């Protein structure tokens, strides 16, 4: 029996020739990640274990991105603990200050994740790296402590679900619209415990930025990981960044899938997930007239250069609506510099947007854009649970950058054609 790309990566890291769904394996990891929210708990556990060193100081990554630049004394104290630990243990990949970006945009950009890798992260959106043909999954802080100490983790081999996309995409449609479509169709637990694999010529036509967005939201369908075939675009992306060898795996033709979905790319319009679940998906045209108080364009889902470019195309020469604020957050310093170079900041400033430094802040109601009672946001982020962005009686609508930018101009949920 053949294996999927996920099974092959897991087998190779467990020193096995073959693995199958349901099997529990002990696997070697290539990277363990934690952030300023999850790392403090990992470090507390590290002390409880009595460990004196990490398994490999090149393979532990700390990114201070959630409550940074620090929003209060507690978050500053947490960052200080991580900083001191990183100095003590000579952690190579400790990111803060002007190096710091939203972790899941930062790690691929810095070449820290490569095809065939096995990555664990104390953040649920660690699954983003599946876009590179790596196995990556989110865990808790204690699991990361285990990984930091031993260089290993235990995993249950997941079942596989395949999504094959054919045809051509409509104008303005990006990876975000596809993943919202899929979550809307299978539900927030539709891929519970399973691996989500994406394939087909319409997937090959997508940019790396769009693929990261799709893999990022595998968790919103309950998925263990999202994963893509490594193609020329992946290799091109990796070529400029890789500093070590990597392995390209491919699913066998006779690999076993629990379900296979065939999707017509052309049938997918601009999608919006309504409060308060990512599966509550509607076409943008069904939401006309819904007033918007705040727009967020950023996060590990849509804070990459492709997203900012789409937003800039729509916002150019226009202004945000009188009573709607629009916050734009380039996900990393490199994306920030690129957006500046391409003149996007001029567009955003003229459109009266707020440009924020890279941070996860508003996505999780942390800082830099909290909603008051009764307020409504359109955000390119990945979650719209109750109270996610602030007051429990505020609302978050999830969209891609095109709908977000158009909605900022109109002050209501809008398709770009309504403002262009």
């Amino acid at each position, binding site marked *: 029996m053949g294996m999927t790309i996920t099974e092959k990566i897991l087998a190779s890291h467990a020193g096995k020739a073959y693995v199958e769904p349901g099997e529990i394996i002990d696997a070697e990891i290539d990277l363990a990640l934690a952030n300023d929210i999850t790392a403090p*708990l990992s470090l507390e556990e590290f002390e409880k274990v009595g460990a004196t060193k990490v398994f490999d100081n090149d393979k532990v990554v700390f990114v201070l991105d*959630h409550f940074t630049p620090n929003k209060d004394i507690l978050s500053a104290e947490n960052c200080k603990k991580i900083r001191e630990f990183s100095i003590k243990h000579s952690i190579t990949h400790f990111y803060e200050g002007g190096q710091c970006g939203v972790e899941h945009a930062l790690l691929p950009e810095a070449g820290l994740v490569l095809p065939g890798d096995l990555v664990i992260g104390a*953040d649920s959106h660690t699954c983003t790296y599946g876009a590179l043909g790596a196995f990556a999954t989110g865990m808790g802080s204690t699991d990361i*402590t285990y990984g930091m*100490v031993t*260089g290993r983790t235990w995993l249950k081999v997941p079942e596989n679900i395949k999504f094959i996309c054919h045809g051509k995409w409509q104008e303005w449609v990006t990876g975000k619209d596809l993943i919202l479509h899929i979550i809307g169709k299978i539900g927030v*637990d539709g891929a519970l415990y399973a691996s989500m694999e994406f394939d087909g010529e319409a997937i090959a036509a997508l940019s790396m930025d769009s693929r990261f967005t799709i893999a990022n939201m595998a968790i919103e369908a309950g998925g*263990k990981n999202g994963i893509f075939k490594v193609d020329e675009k992946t290799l091109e992306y990796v070529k400029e960044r890789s500093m070590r060898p990597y392995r390209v795996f491919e699913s066998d033709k006779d690999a076993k899938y629990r379900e296979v979905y065939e999707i017509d790319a052309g049938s997918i319009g601009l999608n919006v997930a309504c409060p308060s679940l990512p599966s509550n998906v509607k076409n943008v045209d069904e939401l006309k007239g819904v007033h918007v108080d705040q727009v967020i364009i950023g996060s590990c889902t849509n804070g990459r250069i492709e997203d900012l470019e789409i937003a800039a195309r729509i916002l150019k020469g226009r202004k945000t609506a009188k009573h709607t604020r629009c916050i734009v957050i380039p996900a990393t310093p490199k994306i920030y510099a690129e957006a500046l170079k391409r003149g996007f900041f001029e567009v955003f400033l003229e459109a009266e947007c707020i440009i924020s430094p890279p941070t996860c802040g508003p996505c999780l109601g942390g800082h830099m854009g909290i909603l008051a009672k009764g307020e409504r946001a359109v955000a390119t982020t990945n979650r719209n649970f109750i109270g996610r962005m602030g007051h429990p009686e505020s609302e978050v609508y999830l969209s891609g950058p095109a709908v977000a930018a158009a909605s900022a101009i109109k002050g209501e949920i809008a398709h770009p054609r309504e403002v262009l």
Partner: protein
Amino acid sequence: MILKGRVWKFGDNIDTDIIIPARYLAITDPKALGEHCMEPLAPLFHKEVKPGDIIVGGFNFGCGSSREHAPIAISALGISLIIAKSFARIFYRNGFNKGLALLEANIAGDVEDGEIIEVDLSSGVITWKDKEAKAKPIPPFMEELINAGGLINYLKKNLEEGKHESI
């Protein structure tokens, strides 16, 4: 082990932003986290809940973030068990890692809020009034983790036995 407690019913898709909102995540003290547990849905939960109470949920309990603050906040209130139709993967893993027992059983439609239920953790048999349900068996590896006293104790034991180099 037998657990007996009062039921607190919550619905489907109880996500980690409900269990412990992100604005409190700079807190690491379990007691302080417990004071905000379930706040968006039930602001008085932390005051009304008693040690030994049992949470009963629907499907996909604990979906969302990987934050261990969620099982920590629940445990801090003295809740030792959650029964749900299904759990989100990361929450399930975190629960066992932190010593919070999680049982998969679909009883939310049959038990009432405040009702006393009895649970035999080893057999998975849940009883209340004249009714009985059986939870899905806990995977053997998770059982091994519980027997070791959670992941950190499991790791400690392995380190002492020289199974891993680092220490």
